[in-house]
């Protein structure tokens, strides 16, 4: 199954057996060897491959894939995949001389079962000698995706018997022995099938038949007894807990009436986060990873599957409860724990109180002000932050989603009152929430979590597993079970399982007070919360649901942020969405913002001049995106003409006053870039140029040359480069739209470089491929 293939180094002559020139290049590529570093690769015509190579010690290389696909081998009822794996030879290995500065590798050929019939899979399972090390675990974790436990048991013992018949000596050993032992020890959950325990009984009956299974039979019987006992005691305790629940509820009601006198915002945020984490962790450890599989989870909506994957559903219910809690606390902060002594009808039962469906237009929320709601948003943001610290990604996601839900995000007056510190935290939490790629490729989360516990947002896994299930077929060539698919799914289920073990690292005590509040029955549907939201802040603009309202609040906050922060930081932390939000300003008809420009950096001496020039010469600034009939209200003109600070007609619904960033920000269809010319007498001087979305490279070069009093030079003799961070550069193609081509997350600094000058020499870091920085997470 696995043959070790030492690779020899040195040049071709030294090794002497160069056989297949044409394959060498391919082999080099295969083994990630580069010609400069690898002396030679030799293929033998003998069966198998005998390879030797040297690899220069190069830390960068270690990140490369050490495994390469070689090909496939087909046998009756099975397809094997062959990979070659490069492994460093241990320094004390006797068959290779240590070479200074070199790491020696040998290549290992690994066969793995990719697809097979069920029978073949089972016989492979009993064939410990030729099995991949993880096969047995993948099999036991995944077999229920393609067969039933009963069928598997029957097939296994069938195979076992036929093997025993081949071997005429009466053996005390059976290949099924270690398999069944492992099954009973590590995967005994498979047998939790109350009330009949059919599979376990079937297993017992098979084990009883052969002498060599005697001890396993005892183990299995003991297990059967144990699970049956557990079953009995469980049903008893369920009875008990039912009763407890009742008393709990009455306690809860009592407590809530007491609690009603307090504001929920008096709860310490840390403790709220702890209770959320405790609840989430309890549910997460109970998740049956198999139920997350695409082939199971995607069947959930079928009528006959109403109770499918209950453990997964439980985590989602909790997630939705948190979301609902956040939304309700914002829209009806007075319920279920009224924060003021409002004289509104207060039925004794919490649940009816908080759900005033009978009177949708009732004034029960009218006493809350945007400022008050903003404090609540800030409070939740702090809790989200605590959740992030506790690595509770589930509640973190729930809170962030709630704050971005339709009903909440449209409250622009509320958002405008949220402090900028909170907004910074909120934006940061949103932007840094790990996506699929991070979850699956970034081991950091796993490693960090080892010490402190983690509750993942299970949705990420559900998506990935759904995609895997959709993307990969269950069978190949019509009849063979696609085991490769199961391996991939196994990898993801293993991660879930691993995270579940980390959950035990949390030690959180119960705070029934807070838990009671968190779990209070809140039943606002999306529509109801939306209606409430519109009651609180009736739509003002003729198009109430326009995205502008969202942009408004983001803009207000972003602008507020920009007042005090470094614009560089902003453009990095919020690149992507921020500029479009700023642009949306120009779409606002009567702008709800009054933008006041307080100061301009002194270095911008050329801007005003530039602006007036280009606004008279081009229509771009009052073009398509500026729908306002009052050109003065357009964002760009505000940004660029510091003297016209008053926009009298605007209604100041959001009272944000801010200085628009002039550098490193694209506003509407324009931005300001700074251009220098390399290697001319005045080359160190930057000239600011107004760049519009109409400008192509030649025009920009022309304007830059004019600014630098170099009108006599030819445009085509120059190339335009943007200076990125860490001395890197972006070449703007010769006929590109510079506005769209430029990198918006770096400074807007450009250089004109004459073509005959080789710019390559500038890129110190690129001249050495070994030093090339590698992508961190993504391909």
């Amino acid at each position, binding site marked *: 199954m696995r043959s070790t293939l030492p690779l020899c180094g040195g040049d071709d002559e030294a090794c002497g057996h160069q056989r297949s020139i044409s394959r060498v290049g391919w082999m080099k590529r295969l083994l990630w060897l580069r010609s400069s570093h690898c002396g030679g690769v030799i293929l033998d015509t003998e069966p198998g491959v005998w390879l030797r190579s040297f690899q220069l010690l190069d830390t960068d290389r270690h990140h490369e894939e050490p495994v390469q696909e070689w090909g496939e081998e087909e046998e009756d009822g099975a397809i094997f995949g062959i990979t070659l794996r490069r492994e460093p030879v241990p320094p004390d290995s006797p068959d290779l001389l240590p070479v200074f500065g070199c790491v020696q590798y040998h290549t290992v050929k690994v066969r793995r079962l990719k697809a097979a019939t069920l029978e073949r899979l089972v016989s492979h399972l009993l064939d410990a000698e030729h099995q991949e090390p993880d096969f047995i675990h993948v099999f036991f974790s995944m077999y229920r995706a393609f067969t039933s436990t009963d069928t598997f048991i029957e097939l296994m013992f069938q195979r076992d018997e036929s093997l025993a018949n081949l071997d005429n000596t009466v053996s005390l050993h059976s290949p099924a022995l270690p398999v069944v032992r492992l099954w009973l020890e590590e995967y005994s959950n498979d047998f939790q099938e109350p009330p009949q325990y059919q599979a376990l009984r079937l297993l017992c009956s098979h084990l009883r038949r052969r002498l060599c299974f005697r001890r396993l039979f005892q183990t299995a019987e003991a297990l059967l007894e144990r699970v049956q006992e557990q079953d009995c005691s469980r049903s008893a305790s369920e009875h008990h807990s039912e009763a407890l629940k009742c008393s709990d509820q009455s306690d809860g009601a009592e407590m809530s009436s007491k609690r009603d006198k307090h504001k929920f915002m008096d709860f310490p945020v840390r403790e709220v986060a702890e209770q959320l984490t405790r609840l989430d962790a309890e549910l997460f450890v109970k998740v049956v990873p198999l139920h997350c599989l695409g082939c199971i989870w995607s069947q959930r909506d079928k009528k006959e599957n109403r109770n499918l994957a209950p453990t997964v559903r439980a985590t989602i219910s909790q997630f939705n409860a948190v979301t609902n809690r956040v939304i309700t606390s914002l829209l009806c902060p007075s319920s279920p724990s009224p924060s003021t002594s409002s004289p509104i009808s207060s039925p004794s039962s919490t649940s009816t109180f908080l759900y005033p469906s009978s009177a949708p237009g009732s004034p029960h929320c009218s006493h809350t002000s945007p400022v008050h709601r903003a404090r609540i948003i800030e409070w939740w943001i702090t809790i989200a932050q605590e959740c992030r610290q506790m690595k509770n990604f589930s509640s973190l996601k729930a809170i962030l989603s709630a704050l971005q*839900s339709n009903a909440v995000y449209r409250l622009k007056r509320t958002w405008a009152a949220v402090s900028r510190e909170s907004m910074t935290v909120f934006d940061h939490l949103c932007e840094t929430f790990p996506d699929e790629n991070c979850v699956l490729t970034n081991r950091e989360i796993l490693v960090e979590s080892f010490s402190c516990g983690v509750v993942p947002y299970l949705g990420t896994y559900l998506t990935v597993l759904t995609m895997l299930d959709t993307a990969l077929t269950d069978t190949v060539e019509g009849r063979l079970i696609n085991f490769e698919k199961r391996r991939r799914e196994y*990898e993801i289920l293993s991660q879930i399982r691993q995270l579940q073990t980390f959950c035990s690292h949390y030690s959180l005590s119960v705070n029934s007070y807070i838990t009671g509040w968190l779990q209070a029955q809140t039943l606002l549907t999306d529509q109801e919360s939306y209606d409430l939201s519109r009651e609180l802040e009736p739509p003002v603009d003729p198009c109430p649901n326009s995205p502008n309202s969202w942009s408004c609040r983001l803009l207000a906050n972003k602008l507020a942020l920009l007042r005090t922060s470094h614009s560089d930081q902003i453009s990095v932390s919020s690149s992507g969405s921020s500029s479009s939000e700023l642009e949306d300003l120009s779409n606002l008809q009567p702008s709800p913002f009054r933008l006041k420009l307080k100061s301009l950096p002194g270095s911008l001496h050329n801007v005003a001049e530039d602006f007036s020039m280009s606004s008279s010469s081009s229509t771009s600034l009052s073009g398509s995106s500026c729908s306002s009939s009052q050109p003065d209200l357009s964002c760009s003109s505000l940004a660029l003409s510091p003297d016209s600070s008053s926009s009298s007609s605007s209604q100041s619904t959001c009272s944000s006053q801010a200085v628009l960033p002039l550098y490193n920000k694209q506003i509407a269809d324009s931005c300001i870039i700074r251009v220098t010319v390399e290697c001319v007498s005045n080359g160190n001087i930057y000239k600011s140029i107004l760049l519009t979305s109409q400008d192509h490279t030649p025009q920009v070069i022309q304007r830059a040359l004019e600014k630098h009093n170099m009108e006599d030079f030819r445009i085509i003799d120059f190339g335009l480069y943007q200076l990125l961070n860490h001395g890197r550069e972006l*070449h703007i*193609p010769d006929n590109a739209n510079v506005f769209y*081509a430029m990198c918006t997350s770096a400074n807007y600094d450009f250089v004109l470089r004459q073509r005959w000058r080789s710019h390559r020499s500038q890129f110190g870091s690129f001249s050495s491929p070994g030093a090339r920085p590698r992508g961190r997470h993504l391909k």
Partner: protein
Amino acid sequence: MGSDDSYNFVFKVVLIGESGVGKSNLLSRFTKNEFMHDSRTTIGVEFSTRTVQLDHLTIKAQIWDTAGLERYRAITSAYYRGAVGALLVYDISKHLTYESAERWLKELYDHADPHIVVMLVGNKKDLETLRTVPTEEAKDFADKKGLMFIETSALDSTNVEAAFNEVLTAIHKKVASKEVTRGSISAVTLSGSLGLTRESQEEQKGCCKS
């Protein structure tokens, strides 16, 4: 990696619609060529990107799917952020999934860029005999709402490429005519140096690192 190494534009496109209409299947059909030759060591399979060529430009389509998340409340809003295109999918054999299109559309316009390119996609065209949504009706609705329209079958791959390519082309047109706001589109320009391009991509791809 191959063609993944370099691209001029990244367009984020979202797939929306009720659960069970075949969104993931559409996506899978469209991106298939990209993930099939991953070696088994890669767990972080690229399900959702595909690079296409449009008039000498390399467009990387980044397609977001809410597969498996339909039961999570309020989860979708984050998906719309930065999207420049959307495929609103319904099942031609299930009228309810078509009726909900309006609601999806509202949610989409609430969250996404106002210039977003939206295509109404009637999937499961192969189930013609079970059709409950007449083509004309859906087409009229799309016209009225200013949406593009197509009927597809993820099962036999009918119009899957066309659907995505038409959306990407429309986005590209908007970009070229500057209708789409700048910030929502990541543009990376190719340069002579491969390393340089990679660097600029890295800038665009800030991951979960703070």
